[in-house]
């Protein structure tokens, strides 16, 4: 074990996978200088500019060319810079990458990792702050991952590179600097897609979340503990497929489910988790399911306004207390 930042863990994942498999390459804007957040720093020196490819500002073609290159046997890592810019490449993601294997009757695979740095970060305002993971869960053919820790950004990214499906890979910009322990090497570094992580055990209420909100929920659990509430925090890690077994197991134990995410609540992935539990586990529920997501409003620039949209530990703890009949 050694300590790495969430960002450096991703760099290591890319480097290791590129060493392991010649067909892996990365493409995006400014990658030769390390990428806009420095996630690719140093890689061009080791792998050269053909495999760490600087592209024009052409999101649609970054994505579309990656689809073509994947169809013929390479394994591209697509850097979208901000999740918001991936909106310039939706036809390529949704109509092409996600559907090619199926439409062509299984003749080809589209092994792609589509990195989409997401979330609120340093007053980036409405066009640089979105969390749109729910969209991709709705699209057949796509896998959706959203790591919360350095170890998972190492292990899930490696697993995503090895996966033969297109993977929407959502990194939270506010986590880049987060430090944490990561395994040194060996295959146990891999984190399987579709497996949740128990971030904190507790018997009173299950909080399901992912990405940056995992840390927030862990803080909420501390607050709740001070009020005598034992909160279980489940880090979903992968949204599609999501680990129903882990969530159901926990909810059967606690009888209470709160799903919380940074994304807008309306139409968010919390609705899927909450609806599924309400459908299948109603007999186990001691309180109605609850969701806590952002209001349906664009993200403001001014910090105090932006903060209005944040889910805080206090708010999570308050809802949990309510659910426990407080």
């Amino acid at each position: 074990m050694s300590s790495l930042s969430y960002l450096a863990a991703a760099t290591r994942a890319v480097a290791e996978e590129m060493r392991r498999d010649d067909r892996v390459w990365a493409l995006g804007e400014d990658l030769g200088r390390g990428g806009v957040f420095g996630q690719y720093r140093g890689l061009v020196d080791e792998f050269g500019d053909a495999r760490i490819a600087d592209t024009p500002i052409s999101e649609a073609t970054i994505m579309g060319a990656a689809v073509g290159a994947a169809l013929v046997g390479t394994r591209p890592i697509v850097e979208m810079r901000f999740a918001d810019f991936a909106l310039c490449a939706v036809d390529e993601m949704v109509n092409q990458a996600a559907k090619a294997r199926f439409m062509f009757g299984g003749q080809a695979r589209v092994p792609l990792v589509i990195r989409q740095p997401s979330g609120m970060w340093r007053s980036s305002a409405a066009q640089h702050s979105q969390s749109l993971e729910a969209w991709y869960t709705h699209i057949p053919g796509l896998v959706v991952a959203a790591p919360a820790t350095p170890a998972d950004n190492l292990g899930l990214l490696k697993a995503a590179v090895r996966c033969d499906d297109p993977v929407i890979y959502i990194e939270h910009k506010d986590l880049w600097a987060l430090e944490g322990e990561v395994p040194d090497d060996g295959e146990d570094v891999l984190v399987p897609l579709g497996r949740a992580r128990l971030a904190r055990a507790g018997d009173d209420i299950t909080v399901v979340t992912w990405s940056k909100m995992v840390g927030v929920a862990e803080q909420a659990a501390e607050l709740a503990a001070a009020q005598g509430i034992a909160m279980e925090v489940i880090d979903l890690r992968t949204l599609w497929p999501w680990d129903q077994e882990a969530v159901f197991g926990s909810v059967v134990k606690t009888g209470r489910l709160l799903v919380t995410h940074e994304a807008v609540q309306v139409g968010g992935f919390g609705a899927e988790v909450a609806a599924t539990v309400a459908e299948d586990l109603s007999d186990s529920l001691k309180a109605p399911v609850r969701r806590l997501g952002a209001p349906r409003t664009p993200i403001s620039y001014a910090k105090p306004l932006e903060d209005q949209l944040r889910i805080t530990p206090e708010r999570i703890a308050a809802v949990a207390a309510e659910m426990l009949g407080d």
Partner: protein
Amino acid sequence: MPDRSHNIDPDRLLGLYKTMRRIRAFEEAAEAASLDGRVGGAVHLSIGQEAVAAGVCANLRPTDQITTTHRGHGHCIAKGTDPGAMMLELFGKEGGTCGGKGGSMHIADFDVGMLGANGVVAAGIPIAVGAAHGAKLLGEDRVVVCFFGDGAINRGPFLEGLNWAGIFALPILFVCEHNSYASTTRTEAVTAGPGATARAESLGIEAFEVDGNDVVAVDGLAGELTGRIRAGGGPFFVTARTYRLKGHTSVDPGAYRDEDEVSLQWAEDPMNRCEEELQRLGLAAAELETIGRQATEEMAAVAAAATAAPHPALIQAFTDVQDVGAPVWSALP
């Protein structure tokens, strides 16, 4: 443009003619099946445009790759896809190129380097560019050809894809089939400036125009350009002027076009022009007729087989979605 028409070997031209006839016959069979309801989805016929498909693909190897559009049957046949499997696909039957899951607009045949038609105008451009990029990365010696229409040059991926091919110096040939229409719209009315060739040149790509109804000319130009690509050149761009002799889809009577315009264009039918050339080279009319009849028979048989073929197993609706998180099928009530 150099006159290439007089250098062609009669056998080569006969081969091109056979391909064109097979495409025409396929389209006619598909049209009939669409009009009588045996084929359900939209069918975009390439009748009148066969010379481009035949002339370009005659210069490709099985390992070379192409992408095409909603109007792609001709390219598939010319690249070597089995018309039987194609027809099964149009009929949505078992054994179709895509197992009946794609239909006319999504035919693909990776075994012969046919990387897929596309239902989204211009979407094949970045994909073809990526295939060429992949070839370069993998060190594989192939040429990629990207077919698209004159309507596609007004979508962003046209600029992005050509620019990309240029900066990465990719082994790709872009072929714009200029048939003057995008659905019911004259492309002239929605295209500013001199058009595709000039746009390609402004993106640093050496570009050519060719009479797309002259299969000899198309073949000659494609031969030259694929040769230059194999020698390390490329990308290149070709605008092939042709005409969509039928409506936009099989059910479109094309009433928005002048009758005179259409009959004038039938006079330029690449099939007739090829026949004239063959006769000039000494081929007997009877021989050509035989080729035409064989093609018609081949495609009639193919359509009959498709009509009789079974539907795909229902579970196919749920297969080949993805490895991780795949849907689970249970037969419906």
